[in-house]
């Protein structure tokens, strides 16, 4: 009895030691690069840190400046508009394509292969390609519009259109990625459910709303959350498609673009840190709300 006890204790200790050893590389890395950075960034947001020289503690001055800055409010508004505009379209279109691809009709593989290409392309290239297509003078889109007798637009520099254009590019880029996730989710729904429903005389619509959507709801929830967080951090397309002094920039600048300009173009690092803290708080709140909603909306099998 006593022997067995020490044996268990010994294995338990060994197990704990192995456990710590095995998470050690991860934890050390996270502590250095994430946890430390998080707090240092938080501290910087209360300093006048610039490119060189020692940062000086200035209390809430950065936040005060932030809350009096028109540029900040515009960036905040733009960012929310991106989320409101992009997320529903990305989810709806990718879900639609996934359902269509899941029907098992001919050529499905061919379609899927080609629709997926944007997902393996770097946003930098996507930005450049679309910048050229959306060019006012020589762009493909305006050429088509002229051909059809429409009015060409300065898609990337007209404040009335620029946010729509950037959103369209983002939707274009994200749909294929999300579609694949939905497709996998659809393939996990047991066929027997549909067969049973067919026996009960259910039509396609009923099947979609009574079986597909509820069964897919955990995936939809997860993808939506990822997409929201992703769009909140929109930067790449704006950076590549819209020059900083463009007439389109005020209507396109996102929080992360603003952060980049302040922290790394103008070297107001402290001020930039404050912007990321605000971004963090927003994403934190939204994640919390989403988690609450998940409990209400998402269908669980139990």
């Amino acid at each position, binding site marked *: 009895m006593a022997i067995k006890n020490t044996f268990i204790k010994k294995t338990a200790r060994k197990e704990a030691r192995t456990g710590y050893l095995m998470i050690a590389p991860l934890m050390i890395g996270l502590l250095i690069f994430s946890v430390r950075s998080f707090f240092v960034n938080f501290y910087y947001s209360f300093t006048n840190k610039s*490119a060189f020289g020692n940062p000086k503690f200035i209390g809430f001055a950065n936040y005060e400046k932030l809350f009096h800055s028109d540029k900040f409010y515009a960036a905040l508004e733009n960012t929310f508009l991106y989320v409101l505009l992009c997320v529903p379209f990305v989810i709806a279109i990718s879900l639609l394509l996934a359902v269509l691809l899941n029907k098992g009709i001919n050529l499905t593989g061919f379609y899927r292969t080609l629709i997926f290409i944007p997902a393996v392309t770097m946003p930098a290239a996507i930005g450049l390609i679309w910048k050229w297509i959306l060019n006012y003078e020589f762009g493909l889109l305006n050429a088509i519009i002229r051909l059809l007798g429409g009015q060409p637009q300065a898609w990337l*520099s007209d404040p009335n259109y620029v946010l729509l254009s950037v959103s369209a590019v983002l939707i274009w880029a994200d749909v294929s990625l999300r579609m694949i996730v939905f497709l996998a989710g659809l393939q996990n729904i047991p066929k027997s459910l549909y067969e049973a429903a067919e026996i009960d005389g259910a039509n396609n619509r009923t099947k979609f709303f009574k079986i597909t959507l509820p069964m897919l709801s955990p995936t939809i929830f997860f993808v939506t959350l990822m997409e929201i967080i992703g769009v909140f951090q929109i930067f790449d397309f704006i950076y590549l498609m819209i020059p900083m002094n463009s*007439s389109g920039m005020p209507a396109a600048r996102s929080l992360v673009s603003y952060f980049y300009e302040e922290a790394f173009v103008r070297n107001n690092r402290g001020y930039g840190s404050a912007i990321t803290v605000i971004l963090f708080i927003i994403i934190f709140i939204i994640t919390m709300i989403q988690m609450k909603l998940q409990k209400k909306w998402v269908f669980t099998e139990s």
Partner: protein
Amino acid sequence: MLWDEVQSPVFETIIGKFMEANPDIEVELQLTPWNQYWTKLDAAAGAGTAPDVFWMNVFMPKYTDAGILEPLDSYIEKDGLDKSAWVPAMMELYSDKGVQYGMPKGMDVVVVAYNKGIFDKYGVEYPKEGWTWDEFVAKGAELRDKIAEKGGEEYPLAMEIDEPQPSYLQLLVQEGLKIYSDDGLTTDLNDPKAVKPFADIVKLMDDKILPEYKILSDTKATDLFISEKAAMLYVGSWKSSVLDNASFAKNIGLIPMPTRENNHCALGGISYSMSASSKNKEAAWKLISYLSGPESNRIQAEARIEIPAYIAVQDAYGPTFQNIDGSIFIEQSKSAVKYPVHRAIATTTQIISDNAAAIFSRTVTPEEGVAKMAKEVQAAIDEYNATMK
């Protein structure tokens, strides 16, 4: 360390010559793109590992304040160099509180380029030197009418109004404004005269002589001109080789800017500066003095990459162009003034361009925009001066 990839091959030649003459000195050339240059320099300077010699621009006071730049006066004195061998406005631009921190590399001038092909096509006479702003506007209006008559697609004029130097900054200077007072305490943007340049540009857009700001933001004015979509262009000398290499370069005419109160040009340009933490200051100075000296200036002039700031070799610049008449740049530079600078220029330039953008997008009137601009620039200057005390 330098930032312009177009100039980098020429610099390899120059450095090669320098090392031939000074076999005991090894120079390594470092090219860093403009949008990364300052971040990198700042990081290196902060860590005390800045290159021995690097390009500097009007952001200089920020670096002198941080003690990153080596004062050059003692070296100049020791070598007995005559400062008047360089264009005075350029030497002045790179001195701070009477101390020289940079030796001029060359200078940037703005002139007007026009496409003779488009003028001929619509039967409009070429502009003549000594023209006034009104004549310039009339030329634009004439082009506009004749282009419209024949159903053409060209714009009469293009101007890079998304950047101050090749556009409204020149007009402000030509109103006789200094932007920043000599003592660095005030701005004269609150002068009623400061509104006029912006109002004039907006009027050019209203009159359909200059395309709307959204169009100029989408395709850079120089690109519009190079694609033969614009008949006239305010253009900086730093783009001269782009003009000279255009497929229709033989048809490009150059002419000094039209006269407002005057037609002075605010001279910009780059300098060579030395890191205060350099370990080979003697060698670094030798390099700087060679780079800013006549031979290097001549090579750069002949490669069409820079108007010499070294007066004696300025003649080398004009003839090197295959198509365009480079002497106009030199001519324009004769009546030049120093580029308006202030120690807080990184902040104030941003304020000025943000407000200019709002005016050109017509979200505010020129009066409102300039008033706000003046107020914010003054506030930035005050803030800077307060923190420096």
